[in-house]
């Protein structure tokens, strides 16, 4: 009984290590290819547009609601200490440093990440990638790289839009609905939020962008060329991305505090 469990455990561990090694090699390949891919910037721009517009509506809506909830909850909490004027600062720090990058990354993985993975998976299943290989065109350079870089560039832009709309949502609830002084709301925010706070969010969103895009293109590119394989790649993209984003968020927060 025990040896069987140990054997299974060691097999799982071995599988995980092989998968991790695969990710590391693929990531190394993408980083090596990055300068060359940037030379064909038109392809990258198309993918920024694809990944960005795919996620824009959901990001804006979610940003608005998250900001509104933050405004409401923040007001309730701060009112107990008589410092509801600090609502702007609290919401801004929460959105810029934490919620903006994290929620955007989770939504990005669910919307653009799955689209990327399934697109690449379907290209594999319908022999489009093999056809490129046969035309002496490297699919990693022509198809994967622009999509990867498009995701990496789109992610911080989306996180910025999320935080901006979130601030507007919090202002809507805090100032317009709950009666917090508008001048206090904005001036306290401007006084307390520093460049370092904004940079923390920017760094997080760039790292999450790299992670989510890498996971999506890796899963899609290496999916089994069947309907089931494409479905599995899509699911794995969301699951792995979500866990990795939350793990990286803790590590980055601990390092940058």
């Amino acid at each position, binding site marked *: 009984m025990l040896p069987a469990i140990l054997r299974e455990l060691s097999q799982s561990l071995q599988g995980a290590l092989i998968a991790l090694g695969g990710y590391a090699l693929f990531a190394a390949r993408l980083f090596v290819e990055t300068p060359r891919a940037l030379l064909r910037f038109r392809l990258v721009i198309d993918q920024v547009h694809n990944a960005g517009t795919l996620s824009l509506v959901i990001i804006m809506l979610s940003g608005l609601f998250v900001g509104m909830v933050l405004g409401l909850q923040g007001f309730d909490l701060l009112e107990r200490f008589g410092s509801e004027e600090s609502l702007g600062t609290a919401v801004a720090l929460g959105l810029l440093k934490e919620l903006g990058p994290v929620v955007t990354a989770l939504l990005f993985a669910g919307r653009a990440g799955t689209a990327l993975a399934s697109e690449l998976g379907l290209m594999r299943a319908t*022999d489009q990638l093999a*056809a490129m*290989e*046969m*035309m*002496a*065109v490297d699919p990693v350079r022509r198809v994967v790289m622009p999509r990867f870089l498009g995701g990496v560039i789109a992610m911080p832009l989306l996180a910025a839009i999320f935080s901006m709309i979130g601030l507007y949502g919090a202002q809507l609830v805090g100032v317009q609905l709950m009666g917090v002084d508008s001048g206090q709301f904005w001036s306290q925010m401007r006084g307390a939020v520093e460049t370092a706070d904004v940079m923390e969010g920017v760094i997080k969103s760039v790292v999450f962008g790299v992670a989510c895009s890498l996971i999506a293109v890796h899963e899609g590119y290496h999916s089994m060329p069947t309907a089931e394989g494409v479905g599995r790649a899509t699911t794995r993209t969301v699951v792995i991305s979500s866990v990795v984003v939350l793990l990286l968020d803790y590590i980055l927060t601990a390092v940058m505090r």
Partner: protein
Amino acid sequence: MTADAIVRVRGLHYAIGGRPIFDGVNVDIARGAVTAVMGPSGTGKTTLLRLITGQLFADRGLVEVEGKDVGKQSRREIYAMRRRMGMLFQNGALLTDLSVYDNVAFPLREHTRLPERLLRHVVLTKLQAVGLRGAWQLTPAELSGGMSRRVAIARAIVMDPELLIYDEPFVGLDPISMGVVLRLIRRLNDTLGLTSIVVSHDVREVSAVADHLYLLSGGKVVASGPPAALADSEREDVRQFMHGLPDGPVPFHYPAPDYDQQLRRVR
């Protein structure tokens, strides 16, 4: 052995997951001819194409294209070799996010710096050759199976290859489309001075277009020669395949225990 063979395969051994696919296969693809590789499903016809094009590598034996051992080529050399080849995949494998025109232009845009005017000229010429110049604006989703296959042929010949490879080009086509593709294979081969390899199990169609047939079965070449010679062959396995007989060396029944005993057995 053919004196002027563009592809030479000698003593090819290849296994997938321990299951042998080829066990000492010898094949010569004569320059300028249409050669068909046939055989029952699962005999490794497509695998042979992948070995010739350097997508897979032989476990043992020699696969030579234009006198160069494919197994010893670097990735860059294999890509250079593929630029002189065109391949038609079973489903056409058109890039779904590009129009018909952009699909045919794709290899030219990737490998050359032709001015747009000249590129347009080349693309429209190739589309005219397959009879689809009028469909240049359509997307792959708007094409029928036969049209997709013809666009893929136009894309395969756009770089003026020396070797054109067709992987199951007749699968799922109606008789008219099949006739069109058949005629195209022969006409392009002769007018452009190509060498063509057709992998298929459509005996009648392939016999009508090929100069030479190879019949694969059980990991070996069981027969080769002109279509008429294979059709008249006395060998049982060749006869079964060429005439589509339901039973023979390839049995109708999957191996099973005794019928009577199995019916009586209480589970």
